[in-house]
């Protein structure tokens, strides 16, 4: 297990540099001149422009800028925006909302998705199974922003159950956005766990478990479920990235002061340092989450640890 983990950590190094460099380069080639955007209609005096350019290393070649940037990041310095405010401060401000949103969405996803999938798998071909298959298909087919607006209209405006905008009621404000954010992955998880369970229920070792005289609960709960969860856990790892990407749309629709909306706003304002900073941060979060999942994966499937 130790060697397996070390290898996983080592694999992250090129991923980290590759991903952050790509983000950096993409933002760098964003059209428009950020300094001109800062000044508005009145052009800045040339010496001010030059001072700004030097301060933000805008006159250096791309790879050099990246080198300086990434060295700073590793010391916890994500740079400042054009108004001189450290990006770290902004992230500290916005992070709690996004983390809560993501956690809640993840919770919905795992609890509802997994339960629905497992129950459908056990009752394959029956009413509940068809219900899960059809409803998940609908969710998968609808884009997330449409789903968001629909949820706002139905549960917020018509039924008045949940707040539809802002973060004034804390966790409660997050219920609807988290559900919308979770919906797509929830549908995938439900389908995936259903299929995986149905497949595993046909496996030889399940027949052995029955022949051992174990009751149905033990056959499914102890013997089949753990094997069925292996692909689901893998999917969960990939999905963390989707949750964070989805947060940009969801936070904007529901007007939540989280990292996602910060990225959205910064992109519009051409605040390169903020976009790159937050994106880099998300890459790190994503990688740590992936590592955790890899550990879980190794725990679930002993064959992985030694491959």
């Amino acid at each position, binding site marked *: 297990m130790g060697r397996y983990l070390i290898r996983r950590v080592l694999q992250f190094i090129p991923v980290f540099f590759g991903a952050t460099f790509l983000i950096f380069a993409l933002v760098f080639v964003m059209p428009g001149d950020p300094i001109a955007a800062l000044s508005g209609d009145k052009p800045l005096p040339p010496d001010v422009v030059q001072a700004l350019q030097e301060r933000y290393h805008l006159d250096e070649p791309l790879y050099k800028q990246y080198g300086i940037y990434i060295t700073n990041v590793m010391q916890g310095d994500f740079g400042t925006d054009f108004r001189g405010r450290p990006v770290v401060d902004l992230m500290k401000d916005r992070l709690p909302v996004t983390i809560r949103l993501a956690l809640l969405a993840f919770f919905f996803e795992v609890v509802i998705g997994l339960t629905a999938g497992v129950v459908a798998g056990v009752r394959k071909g029956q009413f509940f199974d068809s219900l899960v298959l059809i409803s998940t298909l609908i969710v998968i087919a609808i884009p997330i922003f449409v789903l968001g607006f629909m949820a706002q209209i139905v549960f917020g405006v018509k039924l008045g159950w949940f707040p539809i905008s802002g973060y004034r009621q804390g966790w409660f404000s997050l219920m609807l956005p988290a559900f919308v954010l979770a919906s797509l992955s929830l549908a995938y998880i439900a389908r995936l766990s259903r299929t995986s369970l149905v497949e595993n229920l046909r496996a030889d070792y399940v*027949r*052995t478990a*029955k*022949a*051992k*005289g174990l009751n149905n609960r033990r056959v499914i709960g102890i013997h089949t479920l753990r*094997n069925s969860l292996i692909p689901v856990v893998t999917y969960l790892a990939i999905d963390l990235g989707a949750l964070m990407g989805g947060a940009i749309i969801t936070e904007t629709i529901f007007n939540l002061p989280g990292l996602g909306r910060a990225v959205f706003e910064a992109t519009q304002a051409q605040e390169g340092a903020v976009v790159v900073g937050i994106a880099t941060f998300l890459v790190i979060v994503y990688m740590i989450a992936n590592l955790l999942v890899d550990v879980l994966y190794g725990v679930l499937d*002993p*064959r992985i640890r030694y491959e």
Partner: protein
Amino acid sequence: MGFLRVKKSEDLGGSSADPTAPLLEVDNLHVEFRIEDGTVRAVNGLSYTLGRGETLAILGESGSGKSVSAQAVMGILDTPPGFVTQGSVKFRGVDLLALNKKSKTYDHVVPEVRGTRIAMVFQDALTALNPVYTVGWQIGEMFRVHQGASRKEAKEKAIEMMERVKIPSARERINSYPHEFSGGMRQRVMIAMALSMDPDVIIADEPTTALDVTVQSQIMELLAELQRETGMGMILITHDLAVVADVADRVVVMYAGREMETAEIDDIFHLPSHPYTLGLMESIARPDVHVDRLTPIPGTPPDLLAIPSGCPFHPRCTYATERCPKEVPELESVNGSHSSACFYWKEVQVEL
């Protein structure tokens, strides 16, 4: 045959086990799978009796219903689509199947025999063992579930069982996973698990098919030895008679879910009395049996969705006459307990 320990009478499914009854009596067993394309008639009137300390080989080509009949006895059929539609299975005089009035099929109603009184060993131990639990855990589970043993006790018992099936350094290997064992050792783990509750009957479904030849004979020897020690009855399912020749007492030859011939093992070798049995023997190499040629049986196994009328073997049979597609041959005594379900068993014997 070693000493035969007679277990004291006990209650099974509400009725008392009869200590004098044979271990297992299967009578006129019918199993079908109701699938979209129709009804797969996998077992069509199988009967056999297994006594204490006896080893019965069930022989037949792939798809002849060997595994399905064992699953019906164990009560582990996939239902749906699989149903027992007729027949009875008695364990020490106690009926294991009961008619379900609603579905007109038979349910296995004595689950407490499963794994404890009747145990099963499967073909491929790599897939038959759960890949995510240690072998010690999987053997120990029997003691924990059926005897309420603690984790620690279960582990000690599991080590004992592993030593009993001669797995070297059992104590060190108890926490290994199935994929860390060789094929032969894995099959020993399966056997240890099956024997853990000291069952009266063990059903081994092609226990050596996945193994190479030298390991095959080691596993067969182990099974025979354990059987001598415990006096349990054993059903050996196989498609290769040579593998079980030294171990089996009796043989039931199956085709299309039906009994074609049944006899003591020596009689089967020396006086096969059914064209199908003859075909099976000609398709295997065996130094001590004289056959002129090594030929597979012509044709393919029957489509169980539409079993040929009359004798199901007639389309592939060189002895077939116009009578064979019209009439189902009954099992007829050839000599004592040796019977054949062929109109022309005498002609078959003559040719030898």
